[in-house]
């Protein structure tokens, strides 16, 4: 293709664009534009194809598969020939004794993770920011990222080992005269252990983004604050922290948006029937009901309820952020 060729075709496209925006036959012209666009950029279309196929097959087909939530799905009969039961699975779930338990646990575990896990990296970043010795600071940072790189299976393995009656935690507790016991068998200790280990694993990694934001803070603001007679604490409150607010808002929206969906793998690796009362969450219940007991429709319905609540939470968090600050995801 020659240069002039490209230019003229570009001009023609704009002409067609103008025609379309003047209220010509839109559909027809879009079809025409599509064919034209395809002829000009064949390769883009070739490249888009595998990506689109992937998303349709592995993301959109499962969404369509949610139809089984309204059926009594039997693999032998297939998706289209299983009996339609409407909202029976949902009604069954909400009238089961487990519904309240797993919804409650999902919310309390994730809310605690948010309350303790969200501010921790921000506080760490603010404190690290006050360290003037550069080498010490970077050593601290490197060490604090470390837990993030250990795989979840290993972290939960270590946690189990420390929680046994002869493990590290009990050795420390015994020092203070507490009787030895397996901590992960205790119903009331599961959530603190879960949340605490979560903070431990995420605090350093989570602080990266805030520290990086602070390194780009405007030095003029600090100078102005000093001239106004602000000490270091006042600088922290009035200059350092406000610098972080936009990032904090975005992070908070994303965390609230995933409030109902996180935690499956870790709970699954740590819990046991002894502590279902406080540890069983929606997704683990879906796994046991849907995969282990092969109640596909029932499991799918509960999972769907979870996804829908999640989506609503995200939309709500984003709406709230738009109302109160200038930051939002969309």
């Amino acid at each position, binding site marked *: *293709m020659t240069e002039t060729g490209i230019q003229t075709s570009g001009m023609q496209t704009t002409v067609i664009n103008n025609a379309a925006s003047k209220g010509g036959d839109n559909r027809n012209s879009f079809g025409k534009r599509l064919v034209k666009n395809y002829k000009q950029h064949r390769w*883009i279309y070739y490249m888009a194809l595998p990506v689109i196929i992937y998303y349709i097959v592995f993301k959109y*087909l*499962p*969404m369509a598969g949610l139809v089984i939530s309204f059926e009594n799905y039997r693999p032998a009969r297939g998706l289209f020939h299983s009996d339609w039961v409407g909202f029976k699975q949902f009604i069954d779930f909400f009238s089961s004794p487990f519904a309240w338990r797993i919804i409650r646990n999902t919310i309390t575990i994730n809310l605690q993770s948010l309350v303790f896990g969200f501010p921790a990296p921000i506080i760490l970043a603010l404190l690290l920011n006050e360290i003037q010795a550069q080498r010490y600071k970077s050593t601290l940072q490197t060490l604090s990222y470390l837990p993030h790189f250990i795989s979840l299976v290993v972290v939960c393995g270590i946690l189990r080992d420390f929680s046994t009656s002869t493990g590290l935690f009990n050795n420390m507790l015994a020092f203070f005269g507490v009787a030895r016991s397996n901590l992960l068998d205790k119903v009331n200790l599961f959530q603190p252990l879960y949340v605490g280990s979560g903070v431990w694993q995420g605090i350093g990694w989570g602080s990266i*983004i805030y520290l990086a934001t602070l390194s780009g803070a405007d030095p003029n603001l600090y100078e102005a604050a000093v001239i106004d007679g602000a000490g270091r604490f006042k600088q922290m409150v009035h200059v350092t922290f406000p610098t972080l607010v936009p990032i904090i808002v975005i992070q908070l929206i994303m965390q609230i948006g995933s409030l109902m969906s996180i935690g499956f793998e870790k709970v699954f*690796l740590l819990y046991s029937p002894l502590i279902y009362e406080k540890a069983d969450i929606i997704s683990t219940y879906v796994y046991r009901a849907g995969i282990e007991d092969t109640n*596909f429709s029932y499991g799918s319905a509960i999972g769907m309820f979870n996804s829908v609540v999640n989506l609503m939470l995200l939309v709500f968090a984003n709406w709230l952020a738009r109302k109160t600050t200038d930051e939002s995801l969309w």
Partner: protein
Amino acid sequence: MVHKRSFGEICFDTFNYIFLGLIAFICLYPMLYVVFGSFSNPNELAQHTGALLWPKGYSLEGYKAVFHNMNIWIGYGNTLFYVIIGTITKMIMTAIGAYVLSRKDFIMRRFITLMIVFTMYFGGGMIPDFLLVKSVGLYDSRFAIIIPTLIATWNLIIMKTAFNRVPESLEESAKLDGANDLTILFKIVFPVTKATFAVIALYYAVGEWNAWFNSMLYLSDRNKWPLQLFLREILIQNTSIGNAVGTMADSQTTATIFLEDVVRYCSICVATLPILCAYPFAQRYFVKGVMMGSIKE
């Protein structure tokens, strides 16, 4: 800024240095404990109560048992396969997708972007995903670990953002030479955005290294299991390694029980070592990646 520190500031700084040092120590210590435990003499370790500040006695029995455990090696081999093949295919697909979405003269762009971003916030969930994998015939195939997770949408968005920053003049000249889009992606765009490629490849590789749940769901053949799934057996389900060492499981002496504690530590070390070796070098890229994810268009 040089200024005289007030008494309050000196107190705060002192506290701050000590407090953060303590936090860093807490982040490091569990891993240290495991390393010390792995070199300890099993009997001495069993009698020991308190924190470990150095291996108790010295013995390599645990490591011997781990190295004799075929599962660990099968797992290692499979994990390497999933990491290498998985990362390469995922990078190609993600790059192609990101390239397509970064073309301003592609009129389907907005629609497809919307279609892709939506999947970040809503999906079928565990059961429909599982049934889909079964129905497309991927169940118990190695590709069940790679194909369903070919593109992580978040990574695609990060890459697309990087592609958008490539100066158009670079691409234009290639177009004039008659290069097609695939060539432009690999000959022009890729060299300019190498850092982004490195970061995303790292994300995929680490994710693949740590993944275990899909393997548990989709693989019934133990010969295809990744390392993490065998680790789960050893660490979480406390599967006796007695069989692997060659002793009969029912002739469990206290000695083998003590040994198993040490073996667990050794398994963790053997499985985490590669990550920890790569960690000092890869760390910078991870930090970069976090920053890339925070840039909004």
